């Protein structure tokens, strides 16, 4: 057991400490940082998908008043390392994807920079490119590992034999499309190079991650790179690791040394430069006896990566832990294409990987004539199917049962297409959620400034999730003082090194470091510690991970209405019930859950990046054409949770909740659409044309 902090502030619905500054517009976001003598960068992007730059004519652009300089591969400073090919900007004449950064105009105003970028003439030698994903491709390969370091394939028992022996089987293919994170705040950087020191005001999920990633690329000692990101307007993974634009801004800053360079990606530019979620093709095979007990579960995934850099989404990984089935197989095959580099997007792996199997389970439940909630309960494992370890805590079935009660599931006629109200077909659906409980390593420092003033420093980030507030609550309880005595400072590399806000690890990692620092302070300096006392703490390894498998779980319920004439689909109601350890702050946690569920609704009905394979770029690259839900699309979405006591995960007993809300949401909606209409949809997004009759 991990020694637990006694919750006092933890568990209270404290209002966001940064809320007032955000709604009054005084919280500084990266691009708004006030700097003297600013310059503005507008990039030049490749308009071919593969080839070589043969000529660049910058004369017309350079002739514009206000243009300071134009960088291309011809004149850009050399980078110290080009090992990370995504970050190796302006180092060769090679074009590897459409939209790649191939130049930068630095000018006195953003308008001039943009106009000049449009006047840079590029000539290319164009080569045939490949941008089409298919499970029939002959060049599919098995990655060495999938994100971050899971084996690509697993095989236990004998799936094929179990499939041929079982009375009920299913073998179907599901697809999820190319998707984009699209945080509200675009990726922005202000870079200032001065006397071998680089300052970056950046919109990032991790100030220290930017420092440690960028340092070797540009050849600066990490201590000479200063990153500041106190407020970030969303990331959803796309700001988890620095992308090429940050290196471009740094190169530009070096070129105009002494003047800050401001660079904000446009929404269109984000579609080629800020990562994306690969499309997935998921073959799911299930075998069960007539009582609905699974004897086999196989999940074989085909997806893409970029030839520039490999990112292998761990789509089949959740199938290793969710349900008991003695014969299990998972695999990942990749096509390396001439496309931009994919990356993390909210719940990489679990989010797309719980779509196929959770629709398949719904199909199997129907085949077996068993209620989908009951079917899932019957396949609840006693121990983690992958490792054989017990779960530190697992309440998936409780979430399903609690959700069924609250949602009114029991009144449901299971027959598809059996309920119509005023021209709308009505149905309900359910799916399970799972997300691993992980943590990284960070360091926190606490200093007693006065009897009622504890300064807590840690380089954590708040990407809109509530970190400012939740860490203050954790620090207060760790120090056994009121929250008003805690003076939290986050978001800067000047603070002790902290991990990225990703993998739902933030509070677990940073909170544990703060608890360690508080205990060190009390151990060394007594209670209360004297003014001026200071101590540090670092997240330790958790020995309990040797004994236990650790996951958060949840159940998602959705009501769907489909117009009988037009096929229009609406989701008037969603309910999520989660079991995620102790909830630090019910107010911010509820927002995280319903935010994830809303993004799952978006995945279910709206999001698809349309890649025109002839050109190699996403043609619907703006918010008019790449749809996310409007307010009118979002009905009554609610989330609640089960009190879950887990003394093994960390001193707060808390599991990460930033991602689990999106997991399973799309499957619940697809299952509800089937219940409403009798039409089984295995391809996302679900649009009216697919439901026309």
């Amino acid at each position, binding site marked *: 057991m991990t020694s637990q902090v006694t919750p006092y502030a933890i568990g209270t619905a404290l209002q966001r400490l940064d809320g007032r500054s955000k709604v009054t517009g005084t919280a500084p976001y990266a691009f708004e940082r006030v700097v003297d003598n600013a310059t503005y960068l507008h990039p030049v992007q490749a*308009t071919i998908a593969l080839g070589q730059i043969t000529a660049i004519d910058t004369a017309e652009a350079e002739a514009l008043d206000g243009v300071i300089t134009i960088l291309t591969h011809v004149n850009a400073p050399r980078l110290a390392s080009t090992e990370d090919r995504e970050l190796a900007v302006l180092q060769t004449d090679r074009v590897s994807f459409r939209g790649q950064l191939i130049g930068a105009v630095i000018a006195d105003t953003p*308008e001039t920079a*943009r*106009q000049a970028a*449009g006047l840079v003439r590029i000539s290319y030698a164009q080569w045939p490119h490949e941008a089409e994903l298919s499970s029939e491709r002959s060049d599919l390969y098995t990655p060495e590992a999938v994100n971050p370091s899971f084996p690509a394939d697993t095989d236990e028992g004998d799936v094929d034999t179990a499939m041929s022996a079982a009375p009920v089987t299913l073998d179907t293919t599901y697809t999820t499309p190319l998707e984009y994170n699209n945080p509200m705040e675009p990726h922005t950087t202000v870079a200032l190079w001065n006397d071998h020191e680089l300052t970056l005001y950046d919109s990032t999920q991790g100030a220290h991650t930017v420092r440690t990633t960028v340092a070797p690329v540009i050849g600066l000692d990490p201590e000479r790179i200063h990153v500041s990101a106190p407020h970030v307007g969303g990331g959803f993974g796309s700001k988890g690791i620095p992308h090429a634009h940050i290196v471009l801004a740094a190169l530009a800053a070096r070129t105009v040394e002494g003047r800050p360079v401001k660079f904000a990606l446009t929404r269109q530019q984000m579609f080629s430069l800020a990562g994306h979620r690969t499309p997935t093709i998921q073959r799911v095979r299930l075998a069960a006896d007539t009582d609905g007990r699974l004897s086999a579960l196989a999940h074989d995934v085909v997806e893409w990566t970029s030839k520039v850099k490999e990112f292998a989404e761990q789509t089949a990984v959740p199938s290793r832990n969710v349900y008991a089935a003695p014969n299990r197989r998972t695999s990942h095959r990749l096509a390396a294409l001439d496309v931009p580099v994919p990356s993390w997007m909210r719940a990489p792996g679990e989010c797309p990987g719980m779509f196929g199997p959770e629709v398949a389970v719904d199909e199997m439940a129907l085949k077996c004539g068993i209620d989908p909630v009951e079917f899932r309960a019957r396949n609840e494992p006693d121990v983690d199917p992958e490792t054989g370890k017990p779960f530190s805590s697992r309440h998936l079935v409780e979430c399903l049962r609690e959700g069924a009660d609250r949602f009114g599931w029991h009144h449901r006629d299971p027959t598809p297409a059996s309920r119509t109200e005023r*021209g709308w077909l009505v149905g309900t659906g359910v799916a399970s959620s799972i997300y691993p409980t992980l943590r990284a390593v960070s360091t926190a420092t606490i200093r007693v400034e006065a009897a009622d003033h504890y300064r807590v420093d840690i380089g954590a980030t708040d990407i809109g999730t509530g970190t400012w507030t939740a860490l203050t609550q954790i620090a207060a309880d760790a120090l056994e003082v009121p929250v008003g005595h805690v003076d939290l400072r986050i978001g800067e590399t000047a603070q002790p090194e902290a991990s990225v806000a990703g993998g739902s690890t933030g509070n677990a990692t940073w909170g544990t470091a703060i608890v360690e620092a508080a205990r060190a302070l009390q151990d060394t300096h007594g209670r209360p510690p004297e003014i001026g006392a200071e101590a540090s703490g670092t997240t330790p390894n958790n020995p309990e991970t040797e004994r236990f498998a650790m996951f958060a779980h949840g159940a998602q319920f959705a009501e769907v209405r489909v117009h009988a*004439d*037009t*096929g*229009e689909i*609406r989701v008037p109601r969603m309910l999520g019930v989660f079991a995620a350890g102790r909830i630090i702050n019910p107010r911010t946690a509820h927002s995280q859950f319903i935010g994830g569920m809303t993004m799952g609704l978006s995945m279910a*009905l*709206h999001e698809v990046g*349309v890649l*025109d394979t*002839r*050109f190699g*770029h996403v*043609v*619907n*690259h703006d918010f*008019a*054409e790449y*749809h996310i*839900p*409007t*307010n*009118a*699309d979002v009905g009554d979405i609610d989330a609640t949770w089960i009190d879950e006591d887990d003394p093994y995960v960390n001193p707060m007993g808390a599991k990460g909740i930033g991602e689990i809300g999106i997991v399973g949401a799309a499957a619940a909606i697809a299952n509800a659409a089937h219940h409403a209409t009798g039409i089984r949809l295995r391809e996302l997004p679900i*649009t*009216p*044309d697919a439901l*026309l009759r």
Partner: protein
Amino acid sequence: MKPFDYQRATDTDTAVATVSRNPNARYLGGGTNLVDHMKLGVSSPELLVDVSRLSSDTVETLPDGGVRVGAAVRNSDLAAEPIIRQRYPVLAHALLAGASGQLRNLATTGGNLLQRTRCVYFQDVTTPCNKREPGTGCSALDGYTRYHAVLGSSEHCVATHPSDMAVALTALDAVVHTQGPSGPRSIPVADLHRLPGDEPDRDTVLEHGELITAVDLPALPMAARSNYRKVRDRASYAFALVSVAAAVDIAGDTIRDVRIAFGGLAHKPWRATLAENALRGAPATEATFRTAADAELAEARPLSDNEFKIPMARNTLTSVLRDLTQQEGS
């Protein structure tokens, strides 16, 4: 985006003269479409002549019982106008189905009519497009065509017209008044927009410099029983996959008269005269509605991504006519 000059027009004659003599001048209304195009490089005017304060921004009743809408009337204001809501509900509904509240507050009646296609290739200067750069080819023809035309397109262009308001105006037999270099004229809205043919760069029959000054709605008692139904990929703030504007005059169970226009199907709002002819004098039954829709859609030629538009248009028209004919009589 390149620098441009801006002038605020003080009178119509000067505005028309100014724009007419400069091929790179454009009128500026609400700017909700043109300014986007300037940012994207789709349009690079040298001079903008702001007519948003020039034309009338009032809605007035005409002696013949019709209604005149000034070209500068904002979409939000027109949708809220009591006379429009009572006598032409199809127009109010169409306006409210368009864009977002913020955009409707800016967009003008004249400008809405002249908005350009949302074809993704037209809006992206890195891809060929005959409408944007004549002779470069149509990227949509073998590309992404979910929102594209199934009626009246050509091998040169398969774009659709994006306006909702224009679909309602077409069904209502509205007439546009213009002031141009050759003087004033009146054009039925149904004839304002063109089919692409081999000149897809020309959206309308207007000459360069010709300014829309007002739109007249005829006195049309049957328009009191009218509706606009827009089917789209999300509940708000999306362009139509298919839309239907319809007005019905019904006596007993018989359709005495009917007006129908489709949106989302063609390069212009599509007046469904074949469907109207099939419905006049026919009984108001589900079968009649479907037969009428099929008559209009017989010539439809779908592209790779939009075959669904044909059944969707048929079902939507059927749905609208069912609702209108089952309403309590007016």
